[in-house]
Each structure stands twice: as C-alpha cells, then as structure tokens.
C-alpha cells in the first residue's frame, strides 16, 4: 500500500515538473511579444509625447501585464527616489530581478540590458533607432522561441509522466 502511494507521488511529481517546463516554453514567446509591444509604446511616448522616462515607465507599469509591469513600475519608482544613480544601473538591477521570475532567457535579457545602456542618453532620432534595433532582435528571439515551443512543449509534458512511470517500474 505504502509502495503504491509512493508510486503515485513520484508519477505526480514527475508530471508536474514536465508541465512546468512545458509552461515555460509556452509563456516565453508570449512574454517576448509583450516586451516588444511595450518597447513600441515607449517609442510613441518618446517621439510624440516627449514623456520623460520615469513617467513613461510608470505609465507602462500600469498598462502591461506581469511580469513586465513590475519591471517598468520598479524602475520608475527607483528612478524617482534614486538620488542620482544612473538609469543604466537601476535598469540592470531591475531587469535581472524580473528575469528570474519570468520565462524569458538570457538572449532577451542581453537585448534589454543593451537598450538600457543608451535609454534617455541621446536625442529622439537616436533613441528610436535603438528601440527599433531592440525590437527587431526580440522579434528574432520570438520566432525562435515559437519554434522551440512547438518542438519541446509536448515533449516535456509527456516526458515528465513517462520518466515518473519508468522510475515506478524500476522500483517494483
């Protein structure tokens, strides 16, 4: 009886791990897409509305879904009470925190950090170029992540259950 309960727990746990992995693959393209739309909104704020970055970030923080909302909200809050820390540093810190909670990977993080090192430091034309560059790099990442989703999402779902089953069989 005890063995049976153990077996159920093992299969359950293994399936859960598989589903979590699968969910990451499913969420990554969505979050990248959200990030792209956030950067596009930022472009509008910069070119047409001339909104200063702390305000633009606060605005985006309200409009977007998590986890990106907290990226912008935190950055904005920290900028306002930073007493002069450069934007680049605050951005870097916040990005690294938020990335831990998101399904996005190193490649996207690099793009966003790169963007953070120029945000707000140049004129409008230049800012737009940097934002567009980041968007196009993210679009490439998005395509790749969709590809991975197609390949690995189902695999992880079944793999989790199957590995659990294998362990149980070996146990008996």
């Amino acid at each position, binding site marked *: 009886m005890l063995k049976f309960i153990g077996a159920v727990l093992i299969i359950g746990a293994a399936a859960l791990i598989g589903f979590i992995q699968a969910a990451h693959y499913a969420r990554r393209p969505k979050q990248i897409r959200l990030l792209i739309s956030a950067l596009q909104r930022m472009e509008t704020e910069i070119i047409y509305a001339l909104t*200063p*970055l702390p305000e633009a970030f606060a605005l985006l923080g309200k409009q977007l879904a998590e986890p990106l909302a907290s990226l912008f909200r935190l950055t904005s809050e920290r900028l306002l009470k930073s007493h002069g820390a450069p934007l680049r540093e605050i951005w870097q810190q916040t990005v690294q925190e938020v990335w831990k909670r998101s399904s996005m990977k190193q490649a996207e993080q690099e793009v966003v950090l790169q963007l953070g090192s120029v945000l707000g430091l140049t004129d409008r034309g230049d800012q737009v170029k940097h934002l567009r560059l980041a968007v196009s790099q993210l679009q490439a990442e998005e395509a790749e992540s969709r590809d991975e989703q197609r390949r690995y999402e189902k695999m992880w779902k079944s793999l989790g259950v199957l590995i659990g089953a294998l362990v149980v069989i070996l146990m008996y």
Partner: protein
Amino acid sequence: MEYRRLDNLEAYQLMLDSIMNLLPHSLRFILAHLPEDVQASIEEIRLRESRPLEISYQDRYAFLDESGQIVQHESQAYKPTGKDFQYVLEQLTNHSLYTYEEELRRGYITIPGGHRVGLAGRTLLDQGQVKQIRDVSSFNIRVARDLLGVGKTIVPYLYDPAARSVHHTLVISPPQQGKTTLVRDLARLVSRGEWGTAAAGALAGRKVGVVDERSELAACVKGVPRFDLGPRTDIMDGCPKAEGMMMMIRSLSPEVLVVDEIGRPEDARAIHEALHAGIRVIATAHGADYEDARQRPVLKELLNEGVFARYVILDRRKGKAAPFRVLDRQGRQLEPQR
C-alpha cells in the same frame, strides 16, 4: 520686515536644494563645506570636465579643492570627472535627454528654482545650423536670486503720472549685474501696485504680461511660475519674445509688457505694435551704458526714435557711488526724487 527676510532665507535654501540635487556626492560635499558667507553669495558654479572646479561669488572667482577649501592655484583644485558629468547631465534632463532637445540646441536648461545651467561642448550641425550640443564638457550653473524689493528704489522714477502707469523703460546693463532680478521685481511691484511714490496715490496694480523666452524671469515649471511675479501677471513661458508679445497683445490685454533681452529686428517691431496698442513696455538689453546701447543695430533705432522714456543703467561694480542711474528720454540723468 523680519518675517519677509526669514521668508527669503527659506526660499533661498529651497533654491540651493534644487542645485544640490543636480550634483554628485563629491561636488555636493565640496559646496556644503564652503564658508557660509561664500555659500550665501555664490553666483556661478562652473564645472569643466577634467579642469578645476570654479565658483564665482561677490565679484570674485575661486577654485575649490575636494574638501571645500578655497584655493587660489588651479593645480590644487578638484577636477570634475567624466562620471560627475554623466551624473549632472542625467539629473539635469531627468534621465531623458530627448525631452531637452530644444534646450540643448539653445545651449541652456532652466531648472526648478529658476537657475539656469549653460552648456558647452561639441556641437552637432544640421544644414549649417546648430542642432544640438553633444559631449557636454562645461556646465555653468547660474544661481538665480529672487531679491524681493530691489526694484523699490527704482519704481518711483518710472511712474508716469499722465498715464497713471509706468514709462516705457529700458534696463541696460552688462551681464551679471542683476538685470533679470530687477525686471522681475519691477513686474511684481507694478502688478501689485506698489508704486513707491506719493504721486501715485492709491493707484491699483496693472495687468502685467511677461514674455519669458528663456524661463529666467518666472522660472516656470510646467507653466506655473516658481518666482512670485505679482497677482495680476500672465506669463508666456519659453515663447520667442516677438511672437509672445504679439500673442499677449492680441489675447491677454496686458497694460504693461515685460520682456528680457531685446535686440532682434522682430523685437523692435513687436515693441512698436505694443506702443500703438497703448501698452507700456519694460525691457532689458545688454550694454555697458546708454552710449554703448546706442551702438547696437536694433537698439540704435529704438533709442533714436525716443521710444523709451526711461533708461535704467545698472552698475554695481566696486567703487561706484550708485548701483544704478536713471536717464530720461534724451539720455540725461534724473536727479533722485522723493
């Protein structure tokens, strides 16, 4: 009176705060450790990248070392680093340089408190016109002082009993002599109706229109003036002078127009327009004295036409008996009056 002074002191502390907020810790420390009398009379803080930190105060200048001591020789002075500069620029533009393109083209940024930060560096050109200053390597932080009542001694000269308003007035002075401070106070006094002379009786204040092209007079932040310009004053902030004067004349029915630093042909046209509309003008111009102003192309015409009925010449250099002189339409000095 005591109350007023206290008020001033507090306001002064607030003004300094907005400058301190711009500066990195190293520079803040230096300025905070200056002797009190120097601190209270700072006129300019000049930062030049990798070159000595300089302040000017009480008509003098000095270099400062990293502990806030005044040193006369430049080699001992603190030299602001590239990092300091990055910091100041980022604070100055609220981390968003792109919102200050117009200011960077003109070469200065006005900050809350009315202080003006002049910039120098490498300029970017677009079809022969300066498009922007890039690689900023010099900051000149000009401390704005709002001295309530500096105009009190001058207002009686400017009162025109016939029109029950002020004369057309031109304030002439070299830079850094308090021109802007004076016209700001004049605007306030006229707006409030403090004529300072018995002849005016209980004459109320006049509607004043201020065209503040460089945001120096009123130091507006988002359109709201940081300096007290009186209860009956409208301010056109960041607006080209000539255009702003025309807009004021058309829509705001001012009785007195106040503008800073006239000198372009279109300014003269706008002043003529104001004359015909029966509006009194108080303006300022750069120049050493009356004769000097007469040499300048646009001013020459205005002066020869006898447009202005009063000239106020500021000169507070040491060794001068009076800090100002008031001349009439023909350039004759007016005697002090009761």
